């Protein structure tokens, strides 16, 4: 195997994608490659593509400069700035703008088949509730804010298009360290989509690649700020590479409703 090719590939992957694969992964990739004499750019793209569905804790190198600083999750550190680009994978995603109850309802609507075309059931009709019925919670007199945001008869903007956040993501670096990130300003691709259950008879794994899936890969750019242990994500500071790890994603999706319910129970038990 040509070490020259290996080091060229490594350098390309780093300069184009900020990724440094582990030696093991690199050699597996090159020896498994059917035609190592492919031009470098296409080899690089292929390597990048493959890396998107790997587990970064095994596929990437653990060298310094590719990992979270040790104090990243420290709540006492008021602000810290990332000194290098850090590649990470998504382990969890949450919607901070919507109540868990509303999210559970949204999942149940999909389960009941009500999001299928022709079977939609509209459950909320605007403008018929008593005006003098002040809903507890927060209701600003100013009409430009969502009037009944605190009332849970409102449906999250979830449904087919996906949630608009802001979201919180659990990210993991190549060494396996985890840290939470918050979507400070809207990053387009970050969204949770409740897909319809497959129609009876349809091909099984037709999960549409929409929104963020578990195992999705992204790069936190150099200069990204971390405040009190929470990574602040903006469109400028984040590059979403995409991808997913299918078994993790399936497990996450299957267990999501139960997790939300459990958390809701716990919150109400206090």
């Amino acid at each position: 195997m040509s070490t020259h090719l290996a080091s060229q590939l490594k350098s390309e992957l780093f300069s184009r994608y900020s990724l440094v694969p582990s030696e093991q992964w690199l050699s597996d990739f090159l020896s498994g490659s059917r035609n190592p004499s492919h031009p470098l750019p296409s080899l690089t793209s292929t390597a990048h593509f493959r890396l998107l569905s790997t587990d970064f804790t095994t596929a990437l190198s653990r060298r310094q400069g590719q990992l979270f600083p040790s104090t990243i999750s420290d709540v006492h550190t008021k602000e810290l700035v990332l000194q290098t680009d850090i590649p990470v994978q998504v382990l969890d995603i949450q919607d901070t703008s919507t109540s868990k109850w509303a999210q559970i309802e949204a999942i149940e609507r999909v389960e009941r088949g009500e999001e299928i075309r022709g079977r939609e059931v509209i459950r909320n009709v605007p403008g018929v509730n008593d005006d003098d019925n002040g809903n507890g919670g927060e209701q600003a007199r100013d009409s430009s804010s969502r009037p009944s945001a605190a009332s849970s008869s409102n449906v999250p903007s979830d449904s087919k298009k996906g949630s608009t956040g802001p979201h919180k993501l659990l990210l993991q670096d190549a060494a396996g360290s985890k840290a939470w990130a918050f979507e400070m300003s809207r990053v387009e691709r970050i969204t949770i989509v409740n897909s319809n259950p497959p129609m009876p008879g349809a091909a099984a794994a037709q999960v549409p690649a929409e929104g963020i899936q578990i195992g999705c890969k992204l790069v936190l750019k150099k200069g990204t700020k971390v405040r009190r242990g929470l990574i602040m994500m903006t469109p400028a500071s984040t590059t979403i590479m995409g991808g997913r790890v299918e078994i993790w994603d399936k497990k996450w999706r299957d267990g999501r409703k139960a997790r939300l319910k459990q958390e809701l129970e716990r919150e109400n038990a206090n």
Partner: protein
Amino acid sequence: MPGQQILCVAEKPAIAKAVAQHLAGGRLQTRNVRGNQYVKNYQFTYNFPLWGDCDVIMTSVLGHLTGLDFDQRYRKWTSCPPSQLFEAPIQVTIDHDKKAIAENISQQARYSRILFIWTDCDREGEHIGTEVRNEALKGNPRIIVKRARFSNTEKNHVVQAARNPIDLDEHQANAVAARIELDLRIGAAFTRFQTLSLQNLSEKLENQLLSYGSCQFPTLGFVVDRYYRVRNFKPESFWLIKVMHKRENIKVNFNWRRVHLFDRAAVTILFEQCLDSKHAKVTKVQKKPTSKWRPLPLTTVELQMQGSRFLRMNSHEVMSVAEKLYQKGFISYPRTETDQFSRDFDLKALVRKQTQHNSWGQYAQGLLDGAFKQPRPGRNNDQAHPPIHPVIHAGDNALDANERKVYEFVTRRFLACCSEDAKGEASDIEIEWGPETFHAHGLVVLERNYLDVYVYDKWESSQQLPRYTLNETLEPTEANMTDGKTTPPTYLTEPELIGLMDANGIGTDATMAEHIQKIKDRHYAQSRSKAGGGRNQVQEFIPTVLGVALVEGYDNVGLDVSVSKPFLRKEMELKMKAICEGRKSRREVVDESLEQYREVFVKTQREIDALKRSVTKYVVNDGRE
């Protein structure tokens, strides 16, 4: 041919009388009808442009003349397995107490050259028109059949209708015939089946009819669904940032653009970032005119929804009062989907009729003196009737309490449509503080316009905002991070239920109130006053134990065909529409819909245990498995 006889038939005695009086111009003879005390034959002469001088007999029926039922041998519940009812032979029947009226028609038809039908101009009316026609043909197979198109019983309108006859719309009549057959077959099959299967599970159900209707059930489905959402609700805490700035002695409250978040840590961190930034910068200062739109012309669904909100009457009551007002000639036909007035409609003439009223006469005069504005057009037109509007002035002593309320609503709404929008000025200030954005909003109402007559809408000025300059920096006077809790949805109120039925395409404007009444009559749901009242005492719906049992039972039979979901009925309604538009035949629709419901029926039979378990759980064991 001079001296020929025309037979006119209206849908109700009151309409027959009104029309006869207008056309006869005073020379009217009234004859009794043998065998019926309500229906009369009015005799007069009239000159029709098309037919010349004619003798006219004007009479009426009492709603549907005929009914549909299974052949004698299928009428008893134990006569056959309910599934056979999907195909069992059916026949048109005439009710015993309608026989005299039917006789009257075929008798009079014998001496008449033309049959002029004056039933209400909607689908049901068209079908009744064909029923009348069929009776008339028995007496005179060569009678010519025409139809009058009218939306109210005001004199000029009636005369216009008399002079411009049209033909019966077979399509609409067929749509109704399809509906009648489907309701009969589906209703009977399911009702018999579920009653027989479930009755002996509990003595509470012993003699109870467990009726089924393809529109009732989805209606009940909405009630049950909302009930469970309320019961399963669990409150959650959220956090938000509030900013207040004092200027010119006014305390301006700024609201967070993110509204609130359900993550305390995130909000704390964001708040800290704001506090780090001592000053905030004003990024938007906008003053712009704003308006609150006058309402759209009135449709039946709106009348039911707003009527049950504001008039302390349920939708069924509102509709029956509206029907009475129509028959007495005070308002136009109350069953309409149209929310636009045609260009040549003489609205000012109608406004003029209101200038003498105690409460809104002055306002009406104001409209005529220059404030009049052409109403906003909505997007719907059923091509049959205009939006509901007042036809003539009704003095207070001509109406009883409920009639007065409904008449008032219809009139105020009409006058509001012909008014200017309410105008105001809205101020919007936006500030950026740290990474976060906040805004404040102020409203000054400058002209109330339509709000002065339409007392059902509210729009009020908020506190005046002080002056801000774009790009200036300021220091917030007070800033807090506070929390709140989410609140549960409320049980369904009647206006909401009507809104849901409309949004999900079940029930026509004419029948929604009936279906709601039906689920109450059958003890599937009850209405009660909302706790904590408020001015209007709106009723909210709670399902009964039986209602919950049935809906849950059917849901457990199979979700893809659940009869408590609206889509099956919605499809049926769309097919009815297709018949009216000539796109589908009656036979096609009946066959297709029967197929769909038969599949559901078969599945229900197979999974009857799911229904039984549900009824046992709720009705017998009070909710325990």
